[in-house]
């Protein structure tokens, strides 16, 4: 039953203007490729364009994220490099130990061979001590070697070989000692001169030399590796720190820029607020003086016109009486205008209450107050159950008083006036109340003018009024965070809509 499309189109006063074709400046520019040779964007243009679209908060967040990511990467790489350094230094210690152990083994094996030869020659048991030591220490040496070469298969292999050779040397020497013990010096003379395990000892020397050289190579390699890794780390830290600095500086610039901008805006707002307060104060003084000073001469005009009428008395002719009456009426009308204007100005400045207003009771109270003015009128009222809204009771009373008296006024030419007050629609955000009448209506092309101050669509001799009632309605509804609009057709009645938010507006 409601034409919502057209109703919403009437909300703003700018909508009444006919659709003007777009100015040339606003026309979309034709694609540039037609006239200017297209130049491909550099690859870095896209992220910058993207960055420009971000809000300041997101830009700062992006900057800090980059810094954070950079710190993470640098930390990870540094950690890895340092671990390598630490591991290498552990390996170095092991290598040094190994080299030392190997030379000990070397010497010890030599010692064993030499001392056992001396024994073979002399048969002196004292010379067997060194040999016995080797036999005792050999398992310890091997365990130690295995320990130090763990994880290096090549060296382990050599340790195995070494172990075998040492075993063979010890065994050969044991055989030789046994032969000496059985057959005396003669039985082992050749061996005593040449050594029982000359070959094995040679192999042992070779293996040990190999192992040593292997370790030295590994050491050298690790030293180079560590040096490279240290250089890497230093370079990375340097570049990283530089990048971080640049990023942080940009973020700082962004924040600073934003803060400066905000400060500027705040200062401007403050200035405007002060100007506004000053203007408001001036306006208040103005309306006070209007209220006080402008009324006095009007009272005088009306007063002296009345006194004149009384003084002239019966001798006043009809024409002169009408002139006097017009003078009085005009003064009264201007008084009414001033009063209405003051109310309108007060409505804009007055502190607003925020309570729950029962519109049902409000409308009933208004109709009760109007009952004397409605005498002699035939009006059929249709009033829905109205909701409760949040707002200022006195102001909302003014809204509905104006809408209802308007409906009553503009149906005065109807034999039976029909006035409906109801809920047009209800959403979670707002409730729309409508007041509909079957009065003289209005032309929709003037709809936006309806709510302006001193705007009237009818001549004073048709319907009296100052043209401020609907301006007041709009002002009050706006202060409540709501909207107003109207629909009508000449001679077919009018509907006025008031949309009030269901939640209390932020003040």
């Amino acid at each position, binding site marked *: 039953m409601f034409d919502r499309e057209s109703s919403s189109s009437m909300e703003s006063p700018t909508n009444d203007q006919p659709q003007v074709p777009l100015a040339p400046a606003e026309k979309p520019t034709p694609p540039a490729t037609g006239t200017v040779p297209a130049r491909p964007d550099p690859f870095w243009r896209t992220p910058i364009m993207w960055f420009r679209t971000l809000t300041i908060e997101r830009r700062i967040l992006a900057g800090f994220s980059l810094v954070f990511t950079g710190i993470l990467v640098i930390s990870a790489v540094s950690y890895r490099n340092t671990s390598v350094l630490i591991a290498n230094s552990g390996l170095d210690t092991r290598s040094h130990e190994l080299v030392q152990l190997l030379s000990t083994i070397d010497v010890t094996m030599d010692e064993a061979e030499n001392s056992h030869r001396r024994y073979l020659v002399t048969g002196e048991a004292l010379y067997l001590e060194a040999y016995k030591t080797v036999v005792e220490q050999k398992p310890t040496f091997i365990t130690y070697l295995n320990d130090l070469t763990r994880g290096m298969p090549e060296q382990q292999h050599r340790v195995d070989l070494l172990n075998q050779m040492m075993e063979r040397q010890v065994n050969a020497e044991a055989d030789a000692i046994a032969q000496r013990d059985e057959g005396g010096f003669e039985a082992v003379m050749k061996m005593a001169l040449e050594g029982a395990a000359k070959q094995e000892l040679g192999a042992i020397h070779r293996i040990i030399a190999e192992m040593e050289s292997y370790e030295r190579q590994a050491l050298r390699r690790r030293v180079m590796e560590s040096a490279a890794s240290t250089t890497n780390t230093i370079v990375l830290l340097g570049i990283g720190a530089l990048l971080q600095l640049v990023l942080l500086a940009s973020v700082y610039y962004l924040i600073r820029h934003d803060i400066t901008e905000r400060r500027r805006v705040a200062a401007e707002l403050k200035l405007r607020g002060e100007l506004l307060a000053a203007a408001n104060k001036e306006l208040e003084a103005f309306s006070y003086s209007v209220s006080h000073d402008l*009324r*006095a001469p009007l009272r005088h005009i*009306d*007063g002296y016109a*009345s006194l004149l009428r009384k003084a002239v008395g019966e001798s006043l002719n009809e024409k002169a009486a009408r002139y006097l009456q017009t003078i009085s009426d005009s*003064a*009264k009308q201007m*008084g009414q205008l001033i009063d209405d204007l003051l109310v309108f100005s007060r409505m804009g400045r007055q502190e607003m209450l925020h309570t729950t207003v029962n519109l049902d009771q409000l409308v009933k109270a208004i109709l009760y107050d109007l009952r004397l003015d409605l005498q002699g009128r035939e009006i059929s009222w249709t009033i829905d159950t109205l909701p409760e809204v949040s707002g200022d009771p006195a102001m909302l009373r003014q809204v509905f008083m104006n809408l209802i008296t308007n409906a009553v006024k503009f149906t005065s030419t109807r034999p039976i006036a029909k006035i409906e007050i109801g809920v047009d629609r209800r959403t979670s955000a707002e409730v729309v109340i409508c007041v509909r009448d079957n009065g003289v209506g209005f032309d929709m092309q003037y709809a936006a003018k309806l709510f302006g101050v001193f705007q009237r669509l009818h001549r004073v001799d048709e319907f009296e009024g100052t043209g401020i009632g609907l301006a007041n309605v709009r002002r009050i509804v706006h202060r409540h965070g709501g909207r107003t609009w109207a629909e009508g057709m000449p001679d077919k009645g009018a509907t006025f809509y008031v949309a009030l938010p269901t939640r209390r507006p932020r003040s």
Partner: protein
Amino acid sequence: MTATKPILLAEDNPRDAELALAAMEEQRISDKVVLCHDGAEVLDYLYCRGQFKSRLKGNPAVVFLDLKMPKVNGLEVLRTIKADTNLKPIPVVMLTSSREERDLAESYALGANAYVVKPVEFHQFLSAVKELGTFWGVINEPPPEGSRSSN
């Protein structure tokens, strides 16, 4: 006795004064009206000084006080009257063009006995002044002479 006590009308605007007097005349109480043209004159009258040095002693039956007056404005006069124990019992009626809330609030806060907005329409003004004059000047019994407020 009420009938003998004057009505003090403080009105700087001669036209308003004339219209008010015209209204009083219809009630035949205009001869009781003493007209003051500003706040200072009102105080001179009440304290029997200046041009009122030799007037008959005694407080008026009522003071009709305009708010906006030269020299001393209505609110200042009101403040002086209500702060003086001898003058405090005099009924003071604010008779003004101002409908401003702060004027109303301040007047009552200072102890005004009534606040009347001068209607633009002469008939209403006439009847307002008539009623005020009759009520405060004739019907209402003013405080006895020499009465002082307790505080």
